[in-house]
């Protein structure tokens, strides 16, 4: 299998970005999490936002792949391999973001020697590990063509995929101290995992089609677009339920709602409402519009970015107003706070990612891009080529034809 010069160029670029990210991570390990924008009042930031986003993005792939077998949707079956590659890469990135966020990664083995089984974080680590194993098994069996094993695994994969997002939601949703404390957190996470995950899968499938690696017929694009529109509607419904419940009593959570609607996190909230839910839904609602690859990709990218914005407002809104409010406030513990004086204190929470944080995030994303590119080259293209050589010319033909077109 040969990489084209264009693919090679992309891989080198992604590799360099990933290397810079690793370097910056080492810088963070040496200097501490003080190099980020986090503080004692806003104690989680971009890494946790990206963690939530990527756990969600991972869903789409595995759910589409397992649905193909569980519900016997024949037309989804050719998508299973790219879908599982996408899912595997995303869950690895999610895990990486959690590890990067840890202040004491050298003591991580303590989770194995003294696990606290009531901690949602422990549940999450268990369920993510299961999920990763399922993804890898799926990947191996699909590429080997072990149809029966894949079918059986799908019955396990589908509930685990839903569980992994619910458990991630419970990390937040079970905390009575914060505005996250709501029973709808898990359904919201599953819904936004479904829409953002499927949206990312569509983008990846279009990219693979353009690269001549795997064919993505317009009919299938139309079908997935329709499914995406449904998922977006479900997500919007859940968010609507939550927002109404927050707003109606006019007390308690209404303060948090005000921060979301008109305060610090308003840009994220409104982008998601309009750019991440309404516009993509309208774009995908029309039967004819779904045949346009440009429109479907635009809508999909909007959905992914909208869900990213949702992660931002969801996480950060809860850190703005401390429950015990009063001057001088909370001692921040940041690098600036160490110099003493007013810089030590904050009455309310604020957060802005720093350059090292952004560089690390870009590095992780680049690593993901690299892994996806290489895996799809080796597993999909490599596979279609061997199949072609074995005489199953029909499998290889579309890819070849597409490459000629590109």
């Amino acid at each position, binding site marked *: 299998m040969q990489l084209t010069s264009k693919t090679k160029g992309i891989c080198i670029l992604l590799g360099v970005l990933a290397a810079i990210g690793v370097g910056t991570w080492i810088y963070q390990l040496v200097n501490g999490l003080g190099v980020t924008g986090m503080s*004692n009042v806003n104690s989680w930031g971009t890494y946790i936002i990206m963690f939530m986003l990527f756990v969600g993005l991972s869903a789409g792939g595995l759910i589409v792949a397992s649905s193909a077998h569980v519900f016997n949707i024949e037309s989804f079956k050719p998508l299973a391999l790219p879908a599982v590659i996408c899912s595997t890469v995303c869950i690895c990135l999610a895990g990486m973001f959690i590890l990067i966020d840890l202040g*004491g990664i050298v003591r991580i083995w303590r989770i194995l020697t003294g696990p606290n089984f009531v901690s949602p974080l422990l549940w999450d680590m268990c369920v993510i590990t299961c999920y990763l194993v399922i993804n890898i098994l799926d990947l191996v069996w699909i590429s080997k063509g072990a149809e029966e094993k894949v079918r059986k695994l799908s019955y396990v994969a589908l509930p685990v995929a839903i569980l992994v997002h619910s458990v991630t939601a419970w990390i937040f949703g079970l905390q009575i101290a914060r505005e996250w404390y709501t029973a709808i957190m898990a359904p919201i996470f599953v819904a936004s995992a479904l829409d953002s995950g499927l949206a990312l899968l569509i983008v990846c499938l279009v990219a693979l089609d353009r690269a001549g690696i795997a064919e993505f017929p317009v009919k299938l694009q139309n079908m997935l677009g329709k499914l995406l529109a449904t998922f977006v509607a479900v997500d919007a419904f859940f968010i609507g339920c939550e927002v109404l419940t927050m707003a109606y009593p006019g007390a308690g959570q209404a303060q948090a709602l005000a921060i979301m609607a008109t305060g610090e996190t308003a840009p994220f909230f409104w982008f998601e409402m309009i750019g991440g839910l309404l516009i993509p839904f309208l774009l995908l609602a029309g039967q004819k519009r779904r045949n346009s690859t440009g429109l479907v990709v635009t809508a999909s990218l909007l959905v992914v970015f909208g869900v990213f914005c949702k992660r931002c407002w969801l996480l950060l809104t809860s850190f703005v107003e401390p429950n015990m409010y009063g001057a001088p406030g909370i001692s921040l513990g940041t690098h600036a706070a160490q110099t003493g004086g007013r810089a030590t204190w904050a009455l309310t929470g604020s957060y802005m990612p720093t350059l090292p944080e952004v560089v690390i995030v870009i590095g992780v994303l680049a690593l993901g891009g690299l892994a996806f590119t290489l895996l799809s080259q080796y597993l999909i293209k490599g596979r279609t080529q061997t199949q072609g050589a074995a005489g199953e010319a029909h499998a290889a033909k579309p890819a070849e034809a597409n490459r000629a077109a590109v």
Partner: protein
Amino acid sequence: MTKLAIAINLHRCTGCHTCVNACKMQNNVPMGMLWNRVITENSAVSDGVEGTYPNISRTTIPLACQHCENPACQKVCPTGATYKDDMGRVEIDYDKCIGCRMCMAACPYNVRVFNWNEPDRDPGFNYGDARVPVRSKGVVEKCTLCKERTDNGQVPMCVECCPMEARVYGDLDDPNSEISKLRAKNNVRILLEDMGTKPQVFYLE
């Protein structure tokens, strides 16, 4: 069983911050963070007031770990680094802390602080009680109810140093202790009682 606790008489507290400094000195708390702080409730300025003139009031609340009976922080800790000990205190085993900061998200009182950087101490060396373990970068810390002192029958440093004698330290499981009698009175205030964390630190209004 023992259930160590502190009662703070808000009528006696003048907001002098002596307990803040006593705690910092005793426990070698690094620059930029405090285990115990005094807030002027619902005021954007220190020593400010609540309400509008002439209907104004001022409450200064010394705020540190509430040593909850139902600690939200302890439940969420994945490694069991945060634990409830047999004296009823919420403690941290720094060797087990992986710095995930789940406990900081779970604590309703914002009393946990994290070593974001290499801990910095103004005199350039460790100070305070030599028995207090030195924490490293990347771990969470908070009030231990002066574990090293209370283990040896001494009272916590904030209680020892309060010039107004606003603080009472004792065992809530001992019905004859002063603190148990104070706890039974009807002027007890529990911070964020509706969170259900059942703090052992309580306030007298």
